[in-house]
């Protein structure tokens, strides 16, 4: 089975975000980056399917050269080879444009299965995988938490709202978007890191007609959310003093203890 995992590099979860001068994005200069959380689980799931059924796992990432760190990490964890769609101005592509570029980059590989994370931690569109499936003519399932690829049809467990679940079967090739937290992600071993150095990373350039097309959704402004509640911040940065004040407020003011 040939599986391609789509992986995106995003700002680290605990990075302090500063809004850029023109107010339309964040300062990326000194930002730390990491792999999008659910994409990491997509890779883990792909590696597990390969361990059971054999085959090959490719990773595909799009972004500037710094996105190589995501690719190298995936290769160290056990992916076999990689495709890097390189470009400096791809951050603001609409999900449709991004999915188009990704679909073109992997179309000739003819995978049996494509796995993506269920949404990205930066834009949070939750669409790229589904649109890719449509562009490649594949069936798909989203918010997948279990994959059974051993039969002649693919069977996947999807999460629904409030504790409900549902199994779907579909023919391959298919695309799955994977939910975070569904397994334990393996670490890269030293051996894996050494082996990764010899693995192929193919660089491709996205088609100009895709990235050059004006976006149908344009980001005008980025800003801090307005607070909906008046929060009383206690302790002024001193956690212990804050805790003392908090106990007092909960007792005297909120009267909940």
């Amino acid at each position: 089975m040939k599986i391609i995992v789509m992986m995106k590099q995003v700002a680290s979860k605990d990075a302090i975000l500063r809004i850029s001068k023109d107010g339309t994005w964040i300062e990326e200069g000194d930002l730390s980056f990491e792999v999008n959380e659910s994409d990491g689980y997509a890779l883990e799931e792909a590696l597990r399917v390969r361990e059971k059924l054999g085959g090959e796992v490719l990773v595909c990432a799009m972004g500037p050269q710094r996105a190589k760190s995501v690719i190298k990490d995936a290769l160290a964890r056990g992916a076999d080879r990689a495709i890097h769609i390189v470009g400096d101005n791809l951050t603001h592509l609409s999900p449709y444009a991004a999915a188009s570029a990704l679909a073109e980059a992997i179309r000739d590989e003819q995978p049996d299965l494509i796995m993506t994370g269920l949404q990205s931690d930066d834009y949070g569109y939750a669409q790229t995988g589904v649109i890719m499936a449509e562009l490649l003519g594949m069936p798909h399932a989203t918010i997948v938490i279990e994959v059974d690829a051993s039969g002649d049809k693919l069977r996947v467990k999807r999460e629904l709202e409030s504790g409900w679940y549902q199994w779907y079967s579909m023919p391959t090739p298919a695309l799955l978007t994977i939910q975070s937290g569904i397994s334990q992600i393996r670490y890269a071993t030293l051996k894996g890191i050494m082996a990764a150095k010899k693995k192929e990373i193919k660089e491709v350039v996205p088609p100009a007609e895709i990235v050059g097309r004006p976006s149908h959704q344009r980001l005008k402004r980025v800003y801090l959310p307005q607070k909906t509640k008046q929060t009383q911040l206690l302790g002024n940065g001193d956690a212990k003093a804050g805790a003392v004040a908090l106990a007092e407020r909960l007792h005297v003011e909120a009267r909940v203890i």
Partner: protein
Amino acid sequence: MSNGILVFIEHRNGAVSKTSLEAIAAAQSLGSQLQQQVSAVILGVDPDAMAQGIAAYDLAKVVSASNAKLASYTPDGYTDAVEKVVRQLDPQLVVMSHTYLVRDFGPKLAARFEKSLISDCIRTQVAEGSVTFTRRIFLGKLDADVVSDGKAPVFVTFQSGAYRPDQAVKGSGAPIEKREVEVGEIRMSPEPPFQEVKQAVDLSKAEIIVAIGRGIKSKENIALAQKLADVLGGDIAASRPICDAEWLPIDRQIGSSGQTVAPKLYIALGISGAIQHLVGMKNAGTIVAINKDPEAPIFDIADYGVVGDLFEAVPVLTEEIKKIKGLS
């Protein structure tokens, strides 16, 4: 020329879902500001009875689109059916709720029009006939204003809670347009939805909840939060990653894929406040957040906040509460 707003109605077990009323409220609000009529579409084998219910709202019409292949939800079936209706009505805007079901087929639908959704919006602003959509980015840390350029239709989904169901305006009975829609091959076959083993813990009646998130760092540290919960006579609960890691059982999970609670006191320790968590606890009476990141979205809905290390704050808080309660 494209005209009007089309709102998509979702249903489960023969009942229209509450989020669809939120979508109607969103569409009506945009409709009155843009001076556009709002129509609704509902799908199924025989959705006429549910269409009747929807027709009570102030709408230009309700399209009741039927096909035997729409008996249960599949992305193939729903995409085909809604696409047909959109092409026929040619609306300016298609409005949907950002539910799991819409997340599953909405992007496929928009892709048929060479577009994507403006997804998970929290509010809109209309000026001179054009709409600015606001969505949360970076896991709730920032807001982004988005405009749509290019041709109609614009596909937009709204976050649950962006509008209230009771904001949907009733009308004098909208006409129902019954129509059989064409649906192509369905490639995926669904099995019946199910719930995992019955939940042992019901937190919906808990008065005090101490909830932990990834900031708790390790399973051993949960004892610290448990002590606080014990002193308060409250229950322990958690964000999803804690239950995924099996540090606490799944029936302690709060949020869109866990339990919905409304205690009189909710103390969030090391929880960032992602929307999927907030929907499960935002109706709590008093919300407390202890988090070392001053920009964590949990502070947006907290009544009291302590910015700092929970490992410093929690033992002190526990001791102080003991004193208040005369336990020490």
